[in-house]
């Protein structure tokens, strides 16, 4: 079942001379883990802002085409209604956090929904635990490091338990182990709770093992939309200059030299498995 359906979406910011995205058509199935990537300025963030209605309701401007998210028509549904279904983690956590304590920031969305006090407590505890920031509960978000702020921003959205989570480079300030852990948390939510995940990411080496769907944008529109293996090994991905995982790149280099492996690996585990097969075969 499709949870997001975009048909020929074109959007221009107020005062903009040209559209920030144009002719975007995309279907995302419920439970998908999507990686959305592409060169800077290609329209990824703009598309994300459409998913929860910030575009057009907050940014104004002109939105053409059709967009349905969680059965809601985005142009006709107010942001507060969209927010119950779609959570957005911003690129820069400083733009998202404002309360005087982490706990209050995480509780803010729930309070606005008028949720009972006990339920808010439970959800806040759960979200802080999932993102491993329980010890930051009383700290002021603006005093935290970039990486810690990103965890808080994720916790805020997690607490809302939305059907769709859109994360715009959510781990850019985190160290690799921290980033890996966050990706695992997101992946867990995706698998266990069936939350649909849309992850904007450049660091494909770390993230791609969790995804079942990759969308690449270039020049304000979608140019590739398929399973990870098909996208990473395509000629267009190379031409656009997407940083495909090193495992896939290694496979391509071997293929150029006449060494064939069964399929393109998208992460190190797959590459090891495939290479072990070849190495054994050649020995035997």
């Amino acid at each position, binding site marked *: 079942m499709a949870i997001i359906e975009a048909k020929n979406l074109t959007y221009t910011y107020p005062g903009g001379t040209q559209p920030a995205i144009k002719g975007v058509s995309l279907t995302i199935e419920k439970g998908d883990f999507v990686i959305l990537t592409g060169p800077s300025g290609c329209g990824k963030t703009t598309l994300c802002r459409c998913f929860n209605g910030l575009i057009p309701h907050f940014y104004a401007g002109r939105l053409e085409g059709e967009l349905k998210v969680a059965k809601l028509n985005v142009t006709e549904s107010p942001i507060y209604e969209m927010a119950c279904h779609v959570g957005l983690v911003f690129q820069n956590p400083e733009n998202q956090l404002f309360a005087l304590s982490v706990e209050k920031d995480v509780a803010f969305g729930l309070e606005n929904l008028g949720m009972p006090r006990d339920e808010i407590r439970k959800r806040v505890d759960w979200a802080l635990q999932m993102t491993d920031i329980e010890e930051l509960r009383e700290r002021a978000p603006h005093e935290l490091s*970039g990486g810690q702020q990103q965890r808080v921003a994720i916790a805020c959205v997690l607490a809302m338990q939305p059907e769709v989570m859109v994360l715009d480079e959510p781990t850019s300030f985190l160290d690799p182990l921290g980033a890996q852990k966050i990706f695992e948390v997101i992946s867990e939510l995706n698998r266990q709770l069936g939350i649909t995940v849309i992850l904007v990411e*450049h660091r494909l080496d770390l993230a791609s093992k969790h995804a079942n769907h990759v969308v690449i944008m270039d020049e304000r529109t979608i140019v590739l939309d398929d399973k990870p293996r098909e996208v990473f090994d395509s000629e267009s991905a190379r031409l656009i200059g997407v940083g495909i995982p090193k495992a896939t790149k290694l496979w391509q280099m071997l293929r150029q030299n006449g060494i064939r492996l069964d399929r393109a690996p998208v992460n190190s585990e797959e590459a090891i498995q495939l290479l072990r097969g*070849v190495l054994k075969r050649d020995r035997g």
Partner: protein
Amino acid sequence: MIEVKGVSFTYPTGVEALKGVSLEIRDGEFIAIMGSNGAGKTTLVKHFNGLLKPASGEVFVGGVSTRNVSIASLARKVGFVFQNPDHQLFCETVEEEIAYALKNFGFEEEIVKNRVTWALNLLGLTQYRQTSPFMLSGGERKRLALASVLAWDPKVVVLDEPTIGQDYEQKEKLRQFIVQLNAQGKTVIVVTHDVEFVADCGPRIVLMAEGKIVADGDAKEILTNKELAFKASIVPPQITQIFLGLADFGLPMDVINVHEAGRILFNFLKEEVKP
């Protein structure tokens, strides 16, 4: 040359960020400072241009202790590009942003003009000359922050997390750019988490954890050491992970770069398939 001798630093909040750090950086070196969030990387590099002064110990830049000189005069030698460009940018236009420090350093108008044009061109920002910095994308703002520092031609350039928000092509450009800066004799110090970026650059790595330096060596040696990596919250590059997983076939275990990996595997498999 930058010499750090037994430096400790505690923030007013009581967080002990550096615990007796000693380090020597020679002129013209290319260094990546890596390690977990909160390991003290940014705190350490903020000592290089005097933004922070050690609580105990001493930092010497060009033989002079940072305690005895102003930030302004240190900044001329050590340019600092912040992690978050929004902490650095404030002018009305991109052009004014780059000119700001130059004017403050007292450069003549003609030189300021030339340097601004040069820096805009260098970082591919010429088309945004009259644009407000805040209209730029995250990646573009990062490049502007870098342009405004390079404009005054400091001998040492410190880049705090330069690859954040940069796409693959920009990262590749940035890498070539840094290598070029370094080849021209500049000392380049990069604070980063980006293991794949470092694997492509191959600099000397200073690894930090909990306010201390836990390892110092070349990229190959540090990035392929699983235990060290774990200690500093980094993940070995994907290529290294693959080679560690193939170690029992007698392949080398210290591979970090995809091109080297391709060559090794090709030669190995070529040999193996021979009758």
